């Protein structure tokens, strides 16, 4: 917990505020990553159910959204129940998601002709309840729309995952605009694990937690989703010094 060592007065105040806010702010369920370093940074110790989470790619990933989609699929695979995947550009190759632990019988695809329909469908699915997670691939996510999604998710306790992918790499600075998402992540590809023989090892990602409500930003080198959709912290950052500072893509 982040507030574990906060002093007594503050925790008492917090309790009183929670009491005033009523049942809406009851303790939320979370989905932990199972990686202590990441979970400690997230309030509640994981990705909150009943909230919107946003994933974007870095570099060329802003356009293809491959890493962000697989990261979202890994999160969705670890939830329980059906997954609804809303999209407008059907270029997802499902065998890759199946390799991240998402069984094809668990996913329902909803394909729309345009972006606005994708958001409307996501809202409908989030408000319906009874699904494990709702994933949407979006270009634009304005503040009002994201707040609607966030509220719909809060109402039913369904997890909303937004995969952001833009048409051009230059449009990706749109990610700087604020949204109502509870957590915002940027996942970019990193060179894979070195093998002693020629070949491509386990894929690695550079994972940036850009924003989290009631928490601080962080960045990690992680190993890509395994067959159960789990990531692990890569030892790589210890092997090689990484310059402290912002992402290589945010300059």
């Amino acid at each position, binding site marked *: 917990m982040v507030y574990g060592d906060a002093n007594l007065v503050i925790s008492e105040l917090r309790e009183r505020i929670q009491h005033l806010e009523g049942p809406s702010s009851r303790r939320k369920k979370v989905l932990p990553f199972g990686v202590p370093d990441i979970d400690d940074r997230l309030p509640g110790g994981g990705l909150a159910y009943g909230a919107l989470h946003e994933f974007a790619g870095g*570099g*060329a990933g802003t356009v*293809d*959204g*491959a*890493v962000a*989609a*697989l*990261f979202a699929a890994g999160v969705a695979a670890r939830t*329980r*129940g*059906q997954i*609804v995947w809303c999209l407008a550009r059907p*270029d*997802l*190759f*499902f*065998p*890759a*998601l*199946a*390799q991240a632990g998402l*069984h*094809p*019988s668990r*996913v*329902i*695809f*909803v*394909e*729309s002709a345009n972006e606005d*329909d994708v958001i*409307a*469908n996501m809202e*409908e*699915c989030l408000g*319906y*309840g*009874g*699904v494990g997670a709702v994933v949407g691939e979006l270009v634009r996510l304005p503040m009002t729309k994201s707040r609607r999604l966030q509220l719909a998710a809060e109402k039913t306790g369904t997890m909303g995952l937004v995969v952001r992918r833009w048409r051009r790499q230059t449009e990706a600075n749109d990610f700087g605009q604020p949204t109502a998402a509870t957590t915002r992540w940027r996942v*970019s*590809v*990193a*060179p*894979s694990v070195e*093998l002693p023989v*020629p*070949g*491509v*090892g386990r*894929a*690695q*990602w550079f994972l940036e937690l850009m924003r989290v409500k009631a928490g601080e930003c962080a960045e990690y080198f992680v190993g*890509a*989703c395994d067959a159960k959709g789990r990531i692990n912290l890569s030892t790589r950052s210890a092997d090689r010094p990484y310059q402290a500072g912002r992402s290589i893509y945010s300059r």
Partner: protein
Amino acid sequence: MPAAKAQAIFHGLMLVDADPTADAAALERITLWALGQYSPVVAVDAPDGIVMDTEGADHLQGGEPLMVTGIANRFRAKKLSARVAIADTWGAAHACARATRDETVIVPIGETVRAVERLPLAMLRLSPKIVGDLHTLGFKTIGELSATPRAPLALRFGPEIGRRLDQMFGRIREPIDPIRTPDLIEVSRVFGEPIGAAETIDKYVGYLIIRLVAELQRQGLGVRRTDLIVGKVDGTRQAVRAGTAKPSRDIAWLKKLFRDKRETIEPGFGIEKLTLVAVRTEPLEEVQKASALVDEDLPDITPLIDILGNRGQRVYRVAPVASDVPERSVARIAATSEIATETWVHHWPRPVRLLAKPDRIDAIALMPDYPPASITWRGRKMKVMRADGPERVFGEWWRRDGELDAVRDYFIVEGEGGERLWIFRRGDGVDPATGSREWFVHGIFA
């Protein structure tokens, strides 16, 4: 042409007597089938056609072009040749379907005059005697007739010509009276005072649904497709269709489906009659639910599929297909189909995004089976730091003869920044018969 002349021209001609009653019965059967399939308002356009009001119903078939080709293909599969036309009015569609040589015609909105002015008079749905007399007077096309002053024509032939022309150009309404059978479950309500407010419509649709469900319950049926037909004061009709993925008798659920569609209803000067028809029904038996000891069941999300489907979104699942060719290894299946347990078995990683059409790249590689040292994709050069492969995929000769020798060699390549691509070479690099040795990008890894 007399039968004797035809027999003289064509040796061994088989002659069958016309059977108008059997034809009419068959046409009615097809019409009823179309009622459940395409549109809530379908009628027989005697003696040889079917007329449908597809406005607001085409999106369920993927739009107008897909719908008309779909209809034509359905008929061809039954060894029947059909002509399909969509136009603004019944008259125009009737004429275009019969005059054209093409299988399908779609007349754009507002282009009716241009589409029909050159068509012969016989397409105007007039009696043969009037058409014959008009020919005698020298009229040949619909355009010529419509440009002639009405008064002398009406004096000579009566009001029929003017009415048919106005119907064709949409100047007077021609409502389609939908076909009905006695076993169709239908409930309706007539209003003494026309209604128009949204809440009022909701309320009465709710009452109708309760009555319809009670009737369905009595017969042990569940509804798959329900039509709401709105009769307005000015004699026009509007139809709203709601479909469900599984047979249903859930009142709240049907109410919700029609509430979603309410904004498409235009009350105009007021609604005087609401009719609810269960167009397609399927048996729905009561099932006893055993209480689960271990774990609660996952909630049924069929209603969600219905909402999205009625909005015109494509809702589907994917299922594995036993094929090594990546494009063919995934099939789309209906969202409510049986849950399959099998999944893809791959020992190699697969890319998250698969390009719809492989992208041609330039590659520098040592033949025959080394991965490229560098590739140029979309004008950007990428130095290959690491690579895996080849994974050889053979053509499927049982699908297409041309694939007998075809081979693709897939490689996973990784660039300096860690970007990973799935590329392949056509051919095995030795035998030119197996492929052209060109390189392509086919997918993007995460």
